[in-house]
């Protein structure tokens, strides 16, 4: 650009003409503009930084809160379903050990040790539905559950004394026997149907029934004929016999 007084060459930053020394009006305006722009730039920068920090502070807290809420929900949900989760883990583990456990279970069946069979199944989580054990042991696992209940009830019956309630012991023993006999007589089907009954099932069920019959006759005071007739009796008839036996024990002071 040119000086308006001496027509000498000027740059935009020259406040005064280097040739004639007169003031350069354009430079003045330029410097004022630059100062104003600089100030506005600094203000904008500060505003953006403050806003960014503000949003960052909020964002960080929102993220932390979201994570905490998610963790709380997960912990409560897992805790509330701990039983199902533990059961599922146990079931998966049992399925992996099918061969190993089958050997143990077959051993118990061979020995006629149905109590240990039952406890093993309960402890290892061998379930009869939706499980690899269903096909081979489903019915026996169910039957053993009722057998174990009947076994315990019958020895409680055998251990009856004057401190026990006749009606309570009769009811407990009668119920336990009824559950077992219904299963034994094919009336109480649960998870598996018994259209084709493998020989192993019948052998085990007959073994359990034989045990119950012997416990009734040897330890509970029934005659062999009475004990042999128990499976075919109605529940009411069984309960009458059980009650009579307990009443007789009380009268004899046993």
């Amino acid at each position, binding site marked *: 650009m040119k000086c308006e007084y001496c027509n000498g060459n000027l740059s935009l930053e020259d406040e005064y003409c280097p040739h004639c020394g007169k003031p350069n009006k354009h430079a003045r305006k330029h410097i004022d503009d630059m100062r104003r722009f600089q100030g*506005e730039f600094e*203000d*904008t920068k500060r*505003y953006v930084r403050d806003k960014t920090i*503000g949003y960052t*502070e*909020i964002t960080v*807290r*929102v993220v*932390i*809160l979201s994570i*905490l*809420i998610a*963790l*709380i929900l997960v*912990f*409560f949900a*897992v*805790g*509330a379903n*701990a*039983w199902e*989760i*533990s059961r599922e883990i146990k079931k998966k583990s049992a399925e992996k050990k099918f061969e190993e456990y089958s050997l143990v279970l077959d051993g118990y069946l061979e*020995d*006629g*040790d149905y*109590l*240990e069979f039952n*406890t*093993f199944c*309960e*402890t*290892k989580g061998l379930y009869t539905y939706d499980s690899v054990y269903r096909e081979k042991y489903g019915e026996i696992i169910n039957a053993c559950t009722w057998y*174990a209940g009947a*076994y*315990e009830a019958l*020895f*409680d019956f*055998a*251990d009856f004394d004057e401190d026990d309630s006749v009606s309570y012991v009769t009811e407990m023993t009668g119920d336990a026997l009824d559950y077992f006999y219904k299963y034994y007589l094919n009336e109480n089907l649960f998870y598996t149907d018994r259209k084709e009954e493998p020989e192993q099932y019948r052998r085990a069920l007959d073994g359990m029934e*034989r*045990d119950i019959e*012997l*416990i009734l*006759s*040897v*330890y509970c005071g029934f005659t062999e004929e009475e004990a042999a007739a128990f499976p075919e009796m109605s529940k009411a008839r069984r309960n009458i016999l059980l009650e009579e036996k307990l009443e007789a024990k009380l009268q004899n002071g*046993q």
Partner: protein
Amino acid sequence: MDSKSGLIGWIRNRFAKDVHRAGLFIMDILIVIFCLVMVFALWFMVYSFLEDRDKGYDAYSLQISMGGEHYQTLLEKSNANRAMGIGIRDADYEEYYAVADYFEAFTHFYMYDKAGDAAAEMWQKRMEDAESRMGSLSGEKENIKNWLGIE
């Protein structure tokens, strides 16, 4: 930058900062509260799993069952413990397990023997094996027979 100019802008900015700080303060409090809730939830989860796991029965529980002559319960507890691997090769437990085994084997032996069933032989062997492991509790043999009313 209109909001920064003039009294109204200044007031708006001033309160915006207070609202912002108040919001952050509330969120900080919520974080502290949720941290506490999370610790509780974590404890609840761990406790639920510990409660649901199979803990088995301790030696005192076995002793109570045996002392109360609940031999069938002792047998059930012993079987459950062994299936869980509890007390194996532990003298505190082994003798109770032997008593439980003796009870099971004796009751089976006796009834099969009376019925003339060949299974009696197998149960007799198991009874003798249990007998040899009963140690200081071998006196329970007589108690079991008395409890069953067998001379």
